[in-house]
């Protein structure tokens, strides 16, 4: 896999999003990597509606099999979802199950006018009919299911993409 520079990809994603931003656009980042990315995009794009944070722990489809194993955090949607143009932000799009969970959760806050998905990297391997409208990089090679591509944030705030072999 070629090394991916998360900082460059982040700027590219911001430029893809810029023409689509209207006064009713709100961003919601999926914890944890997606939220870091969303914080950046929110500032770079000068979005006026406050940033949302989604933790999908309570909406995951593997709760029955795995239980609540990751430490759940708050979901915070500080804008009115009703009638809003919401862009869900995630770091890596893989099976699509996390996006499904985030969509379900978002709709428990109201009925948005439209929802789009923006990701840093699409690694393929979809198990649901979900696609990202905005994507900075699409991996052409196939990663093994044991390989986990994830965003990390250094102490100085720098974003890095890292491959972890489980």
């Amino acid at each position, binding site marked *: 896999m070629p090394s991916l520079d998360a900082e460059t990809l982040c700027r590219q994603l911001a430029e893809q999003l810029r023409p689509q931003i209207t006064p009713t656009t709100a961003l919601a980042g999926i914890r944890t990597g997606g939220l870091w990315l969303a914080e950046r995009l929110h500032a770079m794009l000068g979005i006026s509606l406050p940033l949302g944070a989604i*933790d999908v*722990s*309570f*909406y995951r489809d593997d*709760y*029955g099999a*795995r*239980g*609540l*194993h990751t*430490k*759940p*955090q*708050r*979901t*915070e949607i500080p804008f009115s*979802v009703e009638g809003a143009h919401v862009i869900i932000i995630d770091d890596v799009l893989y099976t699509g199950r996390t996006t499904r969970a985030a969509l*379900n959760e978002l*709709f*428990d*806050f*109201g009925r948005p006018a439209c929802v789009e998905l923006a990701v840093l990297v699409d690694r393929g391997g979809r198990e649901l009919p979900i696609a990202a409208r905005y994507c900075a990089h699409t991996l052409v090679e196939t990663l093994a299911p044991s390989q986990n591509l994830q965003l990390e944030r250094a102490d100085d705030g720098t974003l890095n993409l890292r491959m972890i072999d489980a």
Partner: protein
Amino acid sequence: MLNPQLNKHGELQHLLTLDGLPRDIINAILDTAAPFTEVAEREVKKLPLLRGKSIFNLFFENSTRTRTTFEIAAKRLSADVVNLNVSTSSTAKGESLLDTVDNLCAMQADMFVVRHAASGAPFLIAQHLRANGRNDIHVVNAGDGRHAHPTQGLLDMYTIRHYKQDFTGLTVAIVGDVLHSRVARSQICALTTLGVPEVRVIGPKTLLPTDIEKMGVRVFHDMREGLRGVDVVMMLRLQNERMNGALLPTPQEFYKVWGLTAEKLALAKPDAIVMHPGPMNRGVEIDSAVADGAQAVILPQVTFGIAVRMAVMSMLAGQ
């Protein structure tokens, strides 16, 4: 020793008591409860975690607050809740506790929330389920006799953490009828486990168990002395219904000596919080002005109780 609440991986299988429950698990429950508090602010106050699960509320003893908050918690997790009205059920016709449990298991119960006047009843049910190989069914103790009321203890810890952040510098006073109180026992276990350096119990000799010091608390028979400099005042309800014999003078006299008034509360730290598990006897253990005052966090306790019970149920059902 095998802790009957934990499975072989050390995860919570049942919640029966806070006595011996590891600090990590208590902290995990409190941490998990925090995001559940936010659900109440949503348009749809429901999460899909326990969809398709059946939870039976088995209350062999009266309760409004505890049963209702357990029911709300289960419903916010999308579980199906069945409340058994025990006074009109088969128990009144002579069915044994374990026969009732077996029948409910045959109705595909996933969890029992049990309140019973007999100490140990939830343990008996948990043991019975284990003996029958039903490790997929969970038991939550909602108060057994004088023994334990773990979810009350946990919601009290959540409340203290919410207002005071850190347990390790606190002085906490538990005041009143400790002898009859399962709440006090659960509070003492949790406070000690979480590292509170000084837990005081304050009350008349007749209402304190004789060996209470063994639980690691300081005993005070003078309320003013006991309240001096505390960060948290946890009042207990005077449990007239559990008393036999002359443990007490009249309620009026009890109030004079052991009732929490503004004048006595002034001896605690200025930012001390006042807690009460409910139901309150105004003018017996607590003055109305204090119960409704700025330092009281009695109603937030009730609200936090829903989130804490959601956390417990979702951690159990997810094992």
